[in-house]
């Protein structure tokens, strides 16, 4: 039971941490690209292309984390299985404390 609780916690916590780091990096990349465009508007198209590529590469790391999330979500029980497990766990606790 604790294993499943920790699993759910880990699955939920992985993606937001990746998103925090990725959004920081993407913000820095975009701001530097904008500074470059402001300094030299003729190079706007090339800078924009390089910025989009950089953003896509940073985004791909978040996507790897999303895949792990899907993988772990598949391992969590739901529906009838979950009810059975909670019932069995409660039964076990009653027996252990009562007996």
């Amino acid at each position, binding site marked *: 039971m604790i294993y499943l609780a920790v699993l759910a916690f880990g699955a939920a916590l992985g993606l937001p941490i990746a998103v925090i780091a990725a959004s920081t990096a993407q913000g820095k990349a975009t701001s530097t690209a904008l500074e470059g465009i402001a300094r030299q508007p003729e190079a706007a198209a090339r800078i924009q292309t390089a910025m989009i*590529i950089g953003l*896509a590469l940073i*985004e*791909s790391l978040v*996507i790897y984390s999303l*895949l792990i999330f899907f993988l772990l979500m598949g391992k969590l029980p739901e529906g*009838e299985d979950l009810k059975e497990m909670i019932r069995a766990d409660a039964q076990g606790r009653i027996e252990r404390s009562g007996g």
Partner: protein
Amino acid sequence: MKKVSCILLSVLLSTVVMVNGVWAAEEAQETSHDTSAGESHSDSGEHPHYSWLHPLSKILPNEIVPEPLGWEQPDLIPNTFFVILILALLFIIATRKIKPLPESKGQTLLELFVGGISDFFGGILGEHGKKYVPFVGSYFIFILFLNYLGLIPGFQSPTADLNTTLALGVTAVIGVHIIAIKENGLIGYLKHFIGEPVWLGPLMFPLHIVGEVARAGSLAIRLFGNIYGEETVIISLTTLGVGILVASKVPIPVQFPMMLFGLFGGFLQALVFSMLTSIYIVTFLPHHDEEGHGAEAHH
């Protein structure tokens, strides 16, 4: 003429959205029946989501179209063949009577696209590598059409499955290595793996090999993750829309903005895939010139 095309476009878009909603409503109903009957699966449940090309996979023998064993996109291969057929037809029809000064609209449009792709990838590959533009350009067009196929109701994106993207990634990296051997010869190709200080060679050699394998894997997983994630979000939003429909009898296509994002994301992922392939080719070409294109990325 413009008004008619505007009306046609809006009719087409609303049909697409409605059909998509009906399709998802059927799937959601089947899912709810299954879960109420005691199934305990998450999204990719007992019943796979077939597409309209499923009869093809039933008719054709198992050597050409294998039966799915637990795939999430069971109609992968008929959909891929469909895209190949569409691309072949498109390009054959547009280049039937090809002339140096284009007169037909098809040829002009095609020249626009191919010229744009050729300029873009030619800029990255440089003068020495311009002959490899067809290689990366084909990857770009193919992956673009594969990504967009999932947005059409009734079809599935083959790239939303790890099998397709792994095949694309591995063949891209193998192609890059074949190009490297052709350009540098076998000795020069092996010298690239050893790196600059020769006494560090035995350390760098396995590192570079693992790096190449990681390049193939990262190309595959990036493409797969993006397209599969978009598709999953579209399915979840459509289920939400169906819930709204059931609760309040008002049909709202909630998944529509996500499909627009799917257009953008599909294009971007195709671009990133082919651009990374061309950058990998550039790292293997002999560096003659200093053009100053700082688009090199070492993973």
